[in-house]
């Protein structure tokens, strides 16, 4: 699975750096290193979202925050891989 995280200015200011660390940590804890690849993007065109723009495979761009991270990680990653 490919997870593309926005590291452009707008998402950067919404702390996409911390979100990437959360993704890395969760991928490791769930032993998904070989199944999931984290990728970057400099803009996904959804700068007005509340959270950081993240796309799981070729799906829609989701707005991910620290608060909704675990729910999304469970539904969009763990359940699918």
């Amino acid at each position, binding site marked *: 699975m490919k997870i593309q*995280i926005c*590291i*452009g*200015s*707008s998402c*950067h*200011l919404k702390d*996409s*750096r911390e979100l*990437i*660390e959360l993704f*890395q940590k969760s991928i490791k804890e769930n032993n998904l290193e070989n199944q999931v*690849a*984290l*990728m*970057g*993007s*400099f*803009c996904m*065109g959804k700068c007005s979202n509340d959270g950081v723009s993240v796309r799981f495979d070729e799906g829609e761009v989701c707005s991910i925050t620290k608060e909704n991270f675990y729910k999304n990680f469970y539904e969009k990653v763990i359940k699918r891989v």
Partner: protein
Amino acid sequence: MKKFDTQVQYLKYKVLREVARKAWNDTLYDKLLDIPKIIIPGPEPTTRCCIYKERAIVEERMKLAMGGNPNNPNVIEVINIACDECPVAGYEITDVCRGCLAHRCQDACKKDAIYFDHNQKAHIDKTKCVECGKCSEACPYGAIANFKRPCEKACKVKAISMSETKAAQIDNSKCIACGACVYQCPFGAIMDKSYILNVIDLIKKSQNNEKYKVYAVVAPSISSQFIHAKLGQVISGIKELGFFTVVEAALGADMVAYKESKELTEKGFLTSSCCPAFVMYIKKSFPKLVGHISHNLSPAAEIAKYIKETDPTSKVIFIGPCTAKKAEFLQEEQKKYIDSVLTFEELQALFDSKDLDIYSLSEDVLDNASYYGRIFARSGGLSDAVKQALKEQGLAEFELKPVVCNGIEQCKMALLKVGKVDIGNFIEGMACVGGCIGGAGCLTHGEKNKDEVDKYGMEAYEKTISSAISMIKNINN
């Protein structure tokens, strides 16, 4: 509202703006011949002998605005008919000479070139004079002036001379494309080739960024430009032009600082790789030192390379203060990453070609890099960043001895000493005085520019180089 330092820049800008305006509408080739009349409406001439010469010069500027002479590999070109053939007298004794008794000028002259007439007034024997300027320094009245051409005076690498027709000519084997002559020629007779048509074409063919995405990589010196608008408004303006998004070249600088500091500890001695004119200077005038040039890409190419890894079909356009960047992106190694280059002057022309009032736009954000990446824009910033990068990588025991060369003359002094005297272990070379903020493609050059860069640096969301680049390191593209 002052947009430029000089009328020369303003004229160049008007030509770029009109060419761009017609290129956006696909009417350039139909309306080409209208442009000289739009810019020089007449009936009275304003800068030259007649409006016909003024218009002929505008036509030459249009050629450069449209990419210049394809047979000339240099991105800097002389507009022969615009060259006013300034006198090339060199040092001359002026009427201010009082015919004094001391004759300090004669004493200062090591070549015995000064002689006196029956009024005790000094004269220079041009067959003996070597233009050293000692007499001028010695005269207590300041009566000896240097009538060197401004272009020659500006060119510290001595690439400019006078052709048989008395127009300026550029020796491409020496020219480093720094643009000093472009900025200094009072008649605007030397100009950098423009790639605005190339950029407009890339934007149009992207079909609103659907076929591929067009990224702008903006140099941190932008913080000292467009001073009447907020930076966020300039970013909105760039997107309005049709760019998909804007990324800081300073993030590339953070990446370079990290790698360059490591390379320095391995090699023990390095010359910096971020100023393309400095790198070109070493290649052309100090070929024996080429092995010492850092193997890193320039910050712009480094970030462009990364953007292309995240988005392989993307087009990346660098926007900065630099004419030498135009020479850099034409090289094979860089071409892969950077698709075109604009200067701030050209960006202003593009805004106005679309009648974009950037002052009325809302503020977008630009925040990718750390303080250290951003201060690359001014002299000394790169050395500060390398020092910080050593510290952050636990390599602080390596003693960094930076040699900060502010302007190509200081670069030359340092390079001449390499291998002969111990000057330090890291040569930070910036061809323009002040660093990138002194670049020839800047709209304005002011004393406060350095403060603007430092202020912009302090505003960065990321406070360390490691945190700025951690996102990139933690992602496996």
